């Protein structure tokens, strides 16, 4: 089961996901990167149905790129979030995409943002959040630990505590995770666990 968590700090956004690609009870791949870049300062963490995950995220990335080339300017994180939600909503009542997403981005004027979307086309702007069974244990833990002046080191520590909690309590906890961060310098992998 996919694990996806996000934390927003005062000048960065951090996303952690597991790196397991599974097909029913078999683990096909241990190093599947589920956090994909949209452009230099935005990334999607996507969880859910394997085919829909990749298909939908690639579709959004292609459209975001096309907009940037056509208009010689990049979309803001908020615009991308709303566009993505719109696409989910459009498909919802015919052939829905079964994926939950976290959109993390850094805009020059606005700073960092974290958006939570689910397969029913829900959109929320959040400070901490995530999807999957693992998230059930970790959301309340993050609620306790988060504060508005979080440092990067504190956020990494929070993520690691979350991963530990998942491994402790979830029967089918994924073995490996990746943590990425976006700040004014762009996207960076912090560590793999």
């Amino acid at each position: 089961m996919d694990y996806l968590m996000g934390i927003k700090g005062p000048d960065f956004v951090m996303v952690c996901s597991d790196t397991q690609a599974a097909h029913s009870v078999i683990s096909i791949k241990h190093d599947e990167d589920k956090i994909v870049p949209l452009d230099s300062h935005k990334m999607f963490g996507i969880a859910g149905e394997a085919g829909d995950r990749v298909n939908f995220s690639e579709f959004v990335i292609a459209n975001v790129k096309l907009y940037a080339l056509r208009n010689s300017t990049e979309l803001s994180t908020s615009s991308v979030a709303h566009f993505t939600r719109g696409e989910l909503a459009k498909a919802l009542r015919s052939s829905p995409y079964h994926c939950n997403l976290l959109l993390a981005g850094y805009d020059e004027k606005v700073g960092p943002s974290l958006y939570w979307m689910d397969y029913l086309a829900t959109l929320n702007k959040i400070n901490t959040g995530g999807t999957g069974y693992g998230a059930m244990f970790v959301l309340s833990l993050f609620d306790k630990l988060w504060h508005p002046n979080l440092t990067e080191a504190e956020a990494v520590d929070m993520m690691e505590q979350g991963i530990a909690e998942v491994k402790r309590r979830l029967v089918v906890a994924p073995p490996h995770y990746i943590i990425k961060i976006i700040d004014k310098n762009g996207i960076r992998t912090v560590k793999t666990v």
Partner: protein
Amino acid sequence: MARYDRAITVFSPDGHLFQVEYALEAVRKGTLAVGVRGKDTIVLGVEKKSTAKLQDARTVRKIVKIDDHICLAFAGLTADARVLVNRARVEAQSYRLTLDEKVSVDYITKHIAGIQQKYTQSGGVRPFGISTLIVGFDALGAPQLYQTDPSGIYSAWKANAIGRNSKTIREFLEKHYVETSGRDTIKLALKALMETVEAGGKSVEVAVMEKDTGLRILSDDEVDALVKEVEAEKAAADAAKRGGQGAGGGSS
């Protein structure tokens, strides 16, 4: 609604497609665009159209990005170019989405040329009044320059010019082309442009593409500096020639 089934582009008795030839005439009236391929650099230079006093010159763009690694300059009807460029941009992203790969220069040129050809063989439409110069790097890292025209022909070139006075420029390039690299390629393109266009950052726009850096449009100051270098070299070459003639032409 009625479908357009009457073709506008039809053959003449002696085998000409007049609409295509008229489109080429429209291209010949457009502002000049020059493309030069070097060993590791490709340069596109365009003549800046004189803008009205109140017009914001920055919004008149003749060198455009199709994708991060492919660039296009055109000569002819600007509005037609906008439409064609848009189609190319969509195709570039669609290709990426379907094949998880960047388009090659050859592919996108073929696509654009295909569209231009379709408009010479469809009902109710006229050909696009533009020729394009398309540049980029192929998968092996070699620079490429392609040209398309209203008939839908396309081919690769070492250097070419389209638009106003392009014949003169092409002849100049045929005489002076050598495989250059880096700054020398930019100077060659500038030299070619300066044959018919007044030199300086105000009247020409230059874009450089290098293997890993993508497209870079030179600022007016950079262009002015390069123009100075080119003029200095030209003056030095002329002086050397005159000096040689003086020394050798002693007898009469």
